[in-house]
């Protein structure tokens, strides 16, 4: 079986923080052992008192000292566990980031960004839970139960046996309750989802609701959803309310049994259950301590269950197909044409060929327009030029080098790709143009903005190029200009224009076309059915 990439990352990061991992283990063990000590001291205190003795200050202090030690170790355990858990999530997220860059372009377009982001954020969090409040806590709780059993076995064998019989029952009951509660919680979450969806929907369709007079219908629907949530919560409330009283009752019954058995005069019972007062008090303390780890283990099982689903989703992501490595030793052949496509065939899936036998060449400073009906492969040709896909047959060469082998770092100097829609990125105006590429200087950013005629607009803003971007900062046309500036910022050789004036009004279109024209000067241009180049007499290639 192949090793799960998630666990691999977890173990690697634990190994690289070995000291921290060992310290966590020590604290876990230390807290368990020290928690066993105070009742033993208490036993001695009570026995001393029972025999009429006086209590030494040392004994009182050591009672407190063991309680304090337990507290300190618990506190240290939580601290170190948090730190280790965060180290692990950090490592997991970093490895997912690295994976993202290795994904094939096809996979990248297939994955829903929201889903992937949720793997990054939520699923990794559940893995942290799996680790900290799942496995490690469970080991700690199990050890605690076992150690209490050992002590009870030494102190009072009979009682330990009674408990051994009782514990599976208590645990089964706990699990039954927790499962029912989880079910009710899931029902509630579904209802809450419906409620929270109903409100934005109402806001979005408010005009229809008002004009059709369906207010009471919508309210009835909403009230039904909140009633479903109410019923689910009520169910959960019942289990939640009765569970802890039941546990307390069991605890009390056990304590009563301890005293009754300890006080039967029967000799055969006494060898099994007999004990001194001090032991009785200590045993009672231990009994009440055995119920809380039992409850916790139930919760930990639940945590582990839900985290396993998260681990599974991350592993799925880590196993997605990767792209081919690029070739850093490629050398551009200046005598070869800028772009040469030979007998190109391509299909996204095996059966349906999007391109078949396409050949063309584009030389320096030439303008070529691709046209044809929707779905004939215009945008696909662009993707192949950009090296996002490998040809099925034939070749796509840029200056004689296979496009798909060109390293990412060189792409921006080679291609200026203007998409139909501008994708804004978080950051300043300059960030939009630079796209976090440190090799693009401020001067280059400004030159690009000047070429598209946005420089004055940007300088007119309060912080100029350092203004933080919001959707309201620019008009639709200006965003398009910005995307042109982004494409030409690194002074690329070849412009790829993808039908960018599809959604613009006439006035804006004129501005954008003017900007495109100045951006295209002295460059090789390949565009998708654009009026500018149809009328300007560049070459046209029909892909139909």
């Amino acid at each position: 079986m192949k090793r799960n990439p998630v666990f691999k990352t977890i173990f690697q990061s634990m190994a690289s923080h070995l000291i921290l991992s060992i310290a966590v283990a020590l604290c876990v063990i230390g807290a368990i052992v020290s928690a066993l000590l105070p009742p033993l001291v208490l036993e001695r205190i009570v026995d001393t008192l029972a025999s009429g003795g006086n209590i030494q200050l040392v004994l009182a202090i050591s009672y407190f000292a063991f309680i304090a030690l337990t507290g300190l170790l618990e506190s240290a355990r939580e601290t170190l566990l948090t730190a280790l858990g965060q180290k692990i999530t950090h490592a997991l997220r970093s490895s997912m980031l690295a994976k993202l860059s290795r994904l094939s372009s096809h996979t990248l377009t297939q994955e829903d960004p929201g889903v992937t982001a949720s793997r990054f954020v939520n699923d990794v969090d559940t893995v942290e839970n799996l680790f900290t409040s799942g496995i490690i806590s469970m080991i700690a709780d199990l050890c605690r139960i076992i150690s209490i059993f050992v002590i009870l076995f030494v102190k009072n064998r009979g009682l330990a046996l009674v408990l051994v019989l009782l514990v599976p029952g208590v645990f089964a009951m706990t699990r039954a309750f927790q499962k029912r509660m989880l079910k009710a919680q899931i029902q509630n979450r579904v209802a809450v989802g419906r409620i929270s969806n109903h409100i934005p929907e109402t806001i979005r369709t408010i005009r229809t609701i008002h004009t059709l007079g369906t207010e009471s219908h919508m309210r009835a629907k909403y009230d039904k959803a909140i009633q479903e949530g109410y019923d689910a919560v009520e169910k959960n409330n019942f289990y939640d309310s009765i569970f802890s009283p039941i546990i307390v009752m069991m605890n009390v019954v056990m304590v009563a049994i301890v005293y009754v058995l300890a006080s039967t005069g029967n000799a055969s019972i006494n060898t099994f259950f007999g004990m001194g007062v001090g032991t009785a008090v200590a045993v009672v303390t231990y009994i009440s301590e055995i119920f809380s780890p039992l409850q916790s283990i139930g919760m930990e099982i639940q945590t582990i269950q839900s985290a396993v689903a998260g681990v599974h989703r991350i592993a799925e992501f880590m196993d997605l197909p990767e792209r081919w490595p690029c070739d850093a030793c490629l050398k551009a052949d200046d005598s070869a044409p800028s772009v040469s496509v030979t007998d190109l065939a391509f299909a996204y899936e095996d059966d349906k060929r999007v391109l078949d036998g396409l050949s063309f060449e584009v030389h320096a400073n030439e303008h070529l327009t691709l046209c044809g009906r929707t779905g004939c492969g215009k945008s696909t040709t662009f993707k192949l030029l950009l090296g996002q896909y490998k040809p099925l047959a034939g070749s796509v060469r840029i200056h004689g080098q296979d496009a798909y082998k060109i390293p990412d770092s060189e792409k921006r100097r080679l291609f200026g790709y203007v998409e139909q829609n501008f994708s804004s990125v978080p950051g300043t105006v300059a960030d939009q143009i630079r796209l976090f590429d440190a090799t693009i200087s401020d001067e280059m950013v400004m030159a690009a903005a000047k070429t598209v005629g946005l420089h004055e607009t940007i300088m007119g803003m309060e912080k100029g190029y350092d203004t933080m971007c919001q959707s309201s900062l620019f008009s639709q046309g200006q965003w398009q200009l910005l995307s042109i500036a982004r494409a030409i910022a690194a002074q690329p050789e070849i412009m790829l224009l993808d039908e960018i004036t599809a959604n613009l009004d006439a006035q804006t279109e004129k501005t954008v076309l003017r900007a495109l024209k100045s951006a295209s000067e002295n460059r090789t241009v390949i565009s998708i059915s654009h009026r500018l180049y149809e009328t300007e007499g560049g070459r046209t290639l029909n892909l139909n």
Partner: protein
Amino acid sequence: MMPMKGIQSPDKVSSFFKSQWKVLTVVTVTGILYNFGLLVGPIFEGKLAQSLLDLYRGQSLFSDILVLAALYVLSTLVVQFARYLKRLYVRRFANNINRSMKHILYANLIHKSKVALDSENIGSLMTKAISDVDQCAEGMRKFTTEVFDTGIAFLCYAGLLVVCDWKLALASLLISCLSYLIAEKLKGIVEKTGRAFKESSGRLNSVVLDRVSNAGLYRIYGSEKAVDEICETNLSDYEKRAVKAEVLISAMPPLYKIISMLSVIAIVFFCGRNVANGVWTIATFTIFLSSYAKLSTKASKAAKLFNSVQKASVSWKRIKPFMRQPETDESLASVACKDLKVKDLGYKTENGTIIFEGLSFTAKPGSIIGITGPVASGKSTLGKVFLCERPYVGSAAFGGTELSSMKQHDLYSCIGYLGHDTELLSDSIEENILLGSDVALDDYLKAVCFDHEISQMPEGIQTRIGSGGVRLSGGQQQRVALARTLVHKKPVLVLDDPFSALDKTTEMAVFENLRAMCSDSIILLISHRLTLFPQMDNVIWMEDGKASLSDHESLMASNAAYKNLYEIQEGENK
């Protein structure tokens, strides 16, 4: 279900408490019973230990212990039953309030106008309000719980300790308070680091979402490495803040407990002396010790109470504006069609730009008027004027009554509207068309030429169409919306480009059916496609802020722009 029952003024928290007085009475009775009953445990445990000792000394009998143990179990049963009821009812109290608040919130929302919802972010505030309601109800529950569990229990234990030995009790209570004070002092820091962590987590989320959504863009521009570095910086920041925040939350409680357990040294030492001197019995000793342990646990939780109450009050402040006594829903009346008279109608934006002006016409029942003009000539604005969402200039009257003077439900009894945005719900096709009406769908589906396509769908009219109808094509969405409009037919129907995504044949067929079904209504059909315009009774041409009524033939003869538009489109169709 009566979620609003007994709530007089929903904008006051107290009225929510008042409306739940029955539930709260149960909580009070059982809460007091339980918290006094808490003393039962330590007292009986102490007595049992004492009896056991006495038994060994021959001073008591096995039967004494048996009776004591039985009493212990029985009284615990009563106390724990009270506890069960208290827990159940305090949760029911919160659940009831949660339901009422959500109900009131929505009732307020649904009567807000489109204009109000669009402005000032009210929409997003309302969307967030649901989680605020949850927080609010949760805070009210915790407050109610803690009043008993912390308040009364604390008093009981403290009282018991004072009875046993008041000097020792006061001394140890003081230390307990010290741990509480430290927790209170640290609260500010805990909140601050918690907030910083949340902010960092928000930043990480948005950076990650951007990294993933724009992955293709970054790859094409060769920026993946640079963006990964930004992500990595955010990851490190997140790690640092997460550790800080979580350590403060999970590592501090054991430390608080250590501080308040300090007094145990004194208790064990002095109480032990009391026992040795014969002032106390072993029972008193164990009672005192275990009571103190329970009390110090309670005290360390007190800080939590204040936290949740504070959170709840912040949430309440946010939802309070929506907690008004809601208007009642009035259903729309069925109104017979009368004349629609429009005189010098116009519309100005808030900053005074005239979109169009000077439109006059009278439409008789049964007539169909086409409205067209170049891009941005104000066609859609004219359509919306009849909804009276914002004031218009001039006059528009239905059956002699000015539209702007009508009450909302009277107006919407007369005017139907289907806009560009089809405003579909993420529900089934059936629900989207009927919206609570009780009619047979078949005729309507046929009328919009959708019956055949629906019969091809595995789930038929029960097919769920996704958010905003994404699972349907544009043309299908338009036909669902049109069927919805026909089911809720009005005397005047304003349809804004309802056929734009339909092919020409379907458009013709749907139009024929529409005309037949609405023979007694006035239809105002806004369109940029003129295919149907030769069939209109009248045509309104809008251009350069002017709007005027005419008909197809005269526009073809006198209006070059109209003629040009019509001929280009007819040419395309050939």
